[in-house]
């Protein structure tokens, strides 16, 4: 993954240097790692539609927040939550009025074993599993959503003993994928395509069991008058980007 990321970053850099496209330019984007896959696809579609290039950096929203506060030259920030873009806005580091929800995440109770999860709520209730992987609810919106689901089902206090916590949803997925945790709450984007579980078994958690997992985007000051950055934000709100997001399990 890292290597492919490196190659594609190198590729982007190379093409941004040699690309003859007349007016097109490059937008520098900080992307929450849970949005890696759809953002790559969106960046390709964006390039086709507008000729503009994107330079994508993937990582933790908390790290990006610290970097942006300390002068990182990103033009657009796609956070994993709504809180960090709002805080940046309060600190005067964003273009006023540019903040919006670009994606709403979905949650899946997932196991890497086929047939392990049939009816998710009863799988949880019977508690025949060694560990329950969740993203750290203090840090990750997918984690706090998972806690809300458990509270809703009145299982939270019974199951805290079984928690193993990933720092983010990617790490939570690794715990479950490797079989170290029988079960875990992961992002729909990680285990579904076009609304179907692609591997193992899982329960797509009904959205009414938790608050919406809102992921907000914001235009940062270095992108203020940049036509390509503005075009990317417009593109993210458009139908084409939404089709891509939906195929990856975002709403």
């Amino acid at each position: 993954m890292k290597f492919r990321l490196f190659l594609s970053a190198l590729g982007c850099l190379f093409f941004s240097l040699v690309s003859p496209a007349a007016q097109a330019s490059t937008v520098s984007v900080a992307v929450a790692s849970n949005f890696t896959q759809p953002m790559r696809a969106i960046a390709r579609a964006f390039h086709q539609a507008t000729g503009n290039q994107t330079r994508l950096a993937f990582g933790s929203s908390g790290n990006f927040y610290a970097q942006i506060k300390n002068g990182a030259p990103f033009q657009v920030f796609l956070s994993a939550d709504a809180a960090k873009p709002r805080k940046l806005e309060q600190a005067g580091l964003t273009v006023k009025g540019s903040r919006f929800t670009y994606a709403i995440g979905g949650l899946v109770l997932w196991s890497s074993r086929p047939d392990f999860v049939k009816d998710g709520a009863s799988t949880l209730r019977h508690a025949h599993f060694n560990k329950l992987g969740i993203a750290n609810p203090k840090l990750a919106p997918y984690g706090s959503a998972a806690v809300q689901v458990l509270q809703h089902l009145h299982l939270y206090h019974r199951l805290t003993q079984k928690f193993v916590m990933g720092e983010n949803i990617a790490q939570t997925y690794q715990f479950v994928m490797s079989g170290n945790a029988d079960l875990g709450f992961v992002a729909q984007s990680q285990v579904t395509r076009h609304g179907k579980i692609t591997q193992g078994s899982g329960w797509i958690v009904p959205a009414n069991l938790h608050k919406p997992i809102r992921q907000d985007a914001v235009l940062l000051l270095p992108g203020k008058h940049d036509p390509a950055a503005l075009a990317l934000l417009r593109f993210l709100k458009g139908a084409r980007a939404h089709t891509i997001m939906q195929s990856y399990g975002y709403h």
Partner: protein
Amino acid sequence: MSFSQADLAAILLTLRLAATATLLLLLIGTPIAWWLANHRTRWKAVVSAIVAMPLVLPPTVLGFYLLLLLGPHGPVGKLTESLGLGTLPFTFWGLVVGSVIYSLPFVVQPIQNAIENVGTRPLEVAATLRAGPWDAFWTVVLPLARTGFMTGAILGFAHTVGEFGLVLMIGGNIPGVTRVASVQLYDHVEALEYTQAHWLAGVLVVFAFVLLLVLYTLNPVWRGKQ
């Protein structure tokens, strides 16, 4: 006060982990160092390279593969399960195993250097005085190479305290079991709790400085020839 119960628990756990790992590192590292210091076969290069690998590999990469290897689908995980030990990730002993692998070069290399510096002559003399190899090790090598052992122990301990990526990958952030100080610090930063982060980081900085100060004060070789 910005120093919470959870921070304290994380520090105590870190010290327990580092102490356990250091003890095991000395037990495992010493025979390896001894063998490396006393053999001149082509296998020496291979073993040296394997021991030094954690210096090069990013800790998160090492942690990820340990997660796969020690997990229920991995060969080591299958072995520990069949022995009735369960699997190691998300346990204190899982972290110990990870720490031992990760800090091995920091313990083996100083001990190996120290044993090499002792040379074969004192051992030959000991042998003429009818000391067996075991006896010679305890009465000749250990005293003569003691700074190497001390350096190895302190470096192993310090490196385990500072370890982060590996613990992150195989720990699961369980309070009192796998949530060590470095992970707690990372959580503070990620949660934008910068005040708590500064406190915990301050404690680690002071601790690291004192530990290394002791190391350089004790070690006459590093202090320079006087």
